[in-house]
Every structure is written in structure tokens, then in C-alpha cells.
């Protein structure tokens, strides 16, 4: 199991492309398209929809700055709050489950949620007192529907079941952006109850005289399962070398997993803690922002119960993320 996890993780690549184009800069409500493409080791999904930004400051043509108190900088910080709500649909164009840091996706999903961005702005006198820090708090919900086929008892009659899956994430990020200082502690709490097809097994036909039995079919013979899970994650990306294009991102998470088809993740089935150490590289390019390449080793340790996997597993993760979106770090 460890080697399977290792080879799978080593082959994992995540590509997320988010495009956001604000439709009207001068409006307090800005409606924008939202597009995300995710690819992980042959398991792909596209997320498309709209987002609405609320509270973006107006800056109409002809506006005149009102503060005219000579050369005296503003002393008090200017609080800034901007809201964002979004609704999208996720559909896979490959097969299987796409696993991301903040959610799992299987078949089509309807996603909706919102963020609140809080900034404190003060006009700087120079680089040393510049402060472009901000915080973001958000909720995201995701529901999806999938149909599963399986062959009970390895027979020839196929049974099908349809199920709704759901997940929800609450997250918070605090970005400290000052001269020679950038770090962004973040918390995410995700509840996920996603149905997944049972693993396919080989069905061996009867042996004939002088001929051993052969695998005639590889099929699912059990109904799909749904393990309720609660995942708490803390990450801390930071710039160890502020003049380089590299950030380090240690991250630790713990997953509590409950019984199959239950609702509570705390029924004691199993728990697992995972540590990652991301190295992010932001290549220089023109026009887009937040192009991010990442690679991380990971170690995962079973903390209680039995989830059918090795007690300790390890491997590596890789990520490519491209976004022009405002709030993602």
C-alpha cells in the first residue's frame, strides 16, 4: 500500500487555471467569470461559473480626491472590506476523484460560497513602512451527484445506485506583506462526505481440465461507500529569501474519518495526520499573476483506528497553479 501511495503521489500533478476578469471597474458590484481547470495524474475537472464582488471602491472618471490636507499623510489606517460570492459547476473530463487541498471532487458538483476580504491601508512614506497586509475569511459548499454501477456477488446482473455527495470548507488566511517580510498563516476546516466506487476486483472463471482459471472480468462487486471525514489544516507559506521568487510552505493536517455511510467523522474509525513541506516557485512572466509551481514531500501517519492503509506512508506532491484572480494566494 505504501508503494502504491508513493508511486501515485509521485505522479501527481495539479494544474489549476483560474481566470477572473472584472467586468466593470467603476461599479460597486462587479460580476466576473470564474474558471478553474484541475488536472491530477489523469484525473481532470473543470470548474466554471460566476463571481460577484461586493464593495469594490468606486473610482469613476471625474472623481476628485477629497483629502486635500497638504503633504500630511493620512494617519489613521483605512479599513477596507470587500466581499465576494460565487457559484460554479464542476464537471470531470476524466475519471476518478480529484483531490485538492481544500476539497474532493467526484463527478459533477455545484459549488457556492463567499469570502470577506479585510485590509488595513495607510499611505506609506517609503518602503520601510509600507504595509499591504490583508486577511480573508470564507465559506465554500459543494454538492454533487453520481451514479455507481456494480455487480453484486460478481454476478452478471448490474445494480446501480445514485447518491448525493457534499463537502464544506471554512477557511481563513492572514497575509502579512511588508518590506522583506511575507508570511501567510492559514487555517482550513473541511467536512467531506463523498461517495466513491468500491475498488474493482478481478473475477476468475472456473478452471478447466488442464487450464487454470483466468481473470474474465475486472469489476466492482460492492456498493459505493461514503466515509465522512473532517480535515483540519494549518499552513504557513513564508518568504525565507524575500528577494527571491521562492516561498516555503510547511503544512500539517489531521483527518478524522467515520464509519461508512455515517454522518459523523468522530465515530472512531480512523485518524491520520499528514505533514507537507512545499517549495513554491513563482516564475517571472508578463501580465498574469500567481503563476505558482510547487513540489513537496509528505509523510502520513495513522493516529488511531484502521483505514486499511499502511500506518506510515510517504511520497511527494507536485502542483502547477496559474491564476489571475485577486484573492488567492
Amino acid at each position, binding site marked *: 500500500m505504501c508503494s502504491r501511495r508513493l508511486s501515485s503521489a509521485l505522479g501527481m500533478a495539479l494544474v489549476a487555471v483560474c481566470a477572473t476578469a472584472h467586468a466593470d*471597474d467603476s461599479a460597486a458590484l462587479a460580476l466576473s467569470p470564474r474558471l478553474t481547470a484541475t488536472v491530477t495524474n489523469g484525473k481532470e475537472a473543470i470548474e466554471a461559473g460566476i463571481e460577484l464582488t461586493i464593495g*469594490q*471602491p468606486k*473610482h*469613476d*472618471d*471625474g*472623481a*476628485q*480626491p*477629497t*483629502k*486635500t*490636507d497638504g*503633504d*500630511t*499623510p*493620512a494617519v489613521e489606517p*483605512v479599513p*477596507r472590506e470587500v466581499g465576494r460570492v460565487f457559484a460554479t459547476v464542476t464537471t470531470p473530463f476524466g475519471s476518478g476523484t480529484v483531490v485538492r487541498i481544500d476539497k474532493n471532487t467526484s463527478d459533477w458538483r455545484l459549488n457556492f460560497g463567499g469570502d470577506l476580504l479585510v*485590509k488595513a*491601508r495607510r*499611505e*506609506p512614506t*517609503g*518602503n520601510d513602512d*509600507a504595509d*499591504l497586509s*490583508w486577511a480573508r475569511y470564507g465559506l465554500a459548499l459543494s454538492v454533487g451527484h453520481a451514479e455507481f454501477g456494480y455487480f453484486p456477488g460478481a454476478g452478471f446482473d448490474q445494480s446501480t445506485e445514485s447518491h448525493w455527495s457534499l463537502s464544506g470548507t471554512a477557511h481563513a488566511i492572514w497575509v502579512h*506583506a*511588508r*518590506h*522583506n*517580510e*511575507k508570511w501567510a498563516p492559514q487555517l482550513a476546516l473541511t467536512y467531506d462526505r463523498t461517495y466513491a466506487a468500491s475498488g474493482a476486483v478481478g473475477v476468475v472463471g472456473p478452471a478447466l481440465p488442464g487450464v487454470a482459471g483466468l481473470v474474465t472480468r475486472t469489476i466492482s462487486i460492492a456498493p459505493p461507500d461514503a466515509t465522512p471525514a473532517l480535515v483540519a489544516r494549518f499552513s504557513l507559506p513564508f*518568504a525565507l*529569501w*524575500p*528577494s*527571491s*521568487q*521562492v*516561498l516555503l510552505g510547511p503544512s500539517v493536517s489531521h483527518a478524522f474519518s467515520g464509519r461508512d455511510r455515517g454522518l459523523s467523522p468522530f465515530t472512531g474509525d480512523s485518524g491520520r495526520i499528514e505533514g507537507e513541506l512545499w517549495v513554491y516557485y*513563482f*516564475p*517571472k*512572466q*508578463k*501580465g*498574469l*499573476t*500567481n*503563476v*505558482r509551481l510547487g513540489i513537496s514531500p509528505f509523510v502520513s501517519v495513522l493516529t488511531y483506528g484502521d483505514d486499511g492503509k499502511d500506518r506510515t506512508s510517504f511520497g511527494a506532491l507536485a502542483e502547477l497553479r496559474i491564476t*489571475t484572480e*485577486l484573492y488567492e494566494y
Partner: protein
Amino acid sequence: MPRNLEIEVSAAAGAIDECVVWVNHSLVIDQAPTATWSGKIPSAPTPITVEVDGIGTSVYHVKIAIDGAVITDADHALEGGIDVFKKTV
């Protein structure tokens, strides 16, 4: 007599996270990854402050024009992930 001011901040090379522009000590725009603003300013000398946040030594571009005449049109590099550019027009 009021003058027309146009400001354009864009990413030239690298990861630019946010652009903030102050005109006459008022915050007029705070946007990512690029920012443009146009408006009227007094005839008296008017300070402009541009703050840009990004990764490492990314490069951004600032263009400022008054009544259609370009005052500055140049690249600037972030130092330690942040840079402040000031100009009085």
C-alpha cells in the same frame, strides 16, 4: 483649474499581487494584478504614491499622464517583495 490625471500600473515581469494608488493622500484604487485610475486633481502640486506588492524582485510598470501628457512611463522593481513609488505632479 482641475487637471486630468491618468494612472496605469501593470505587471512587467514576475508575480504582482496587488497595486495600491494614493492621490493627494486619498486611497483611490486598490486592485490586483493591475490598476488604472483617472480623475481630476487640483492645479496645486499633488502627491501620488504607488504601492505594489508581489514576490521577490518582480518588475512593475507605472505610467502617469496629466492632461494627456506623459509624466512618467517606466519599469520599477520590487525590493523584498514590495515597492513604493512617489511622484508629485
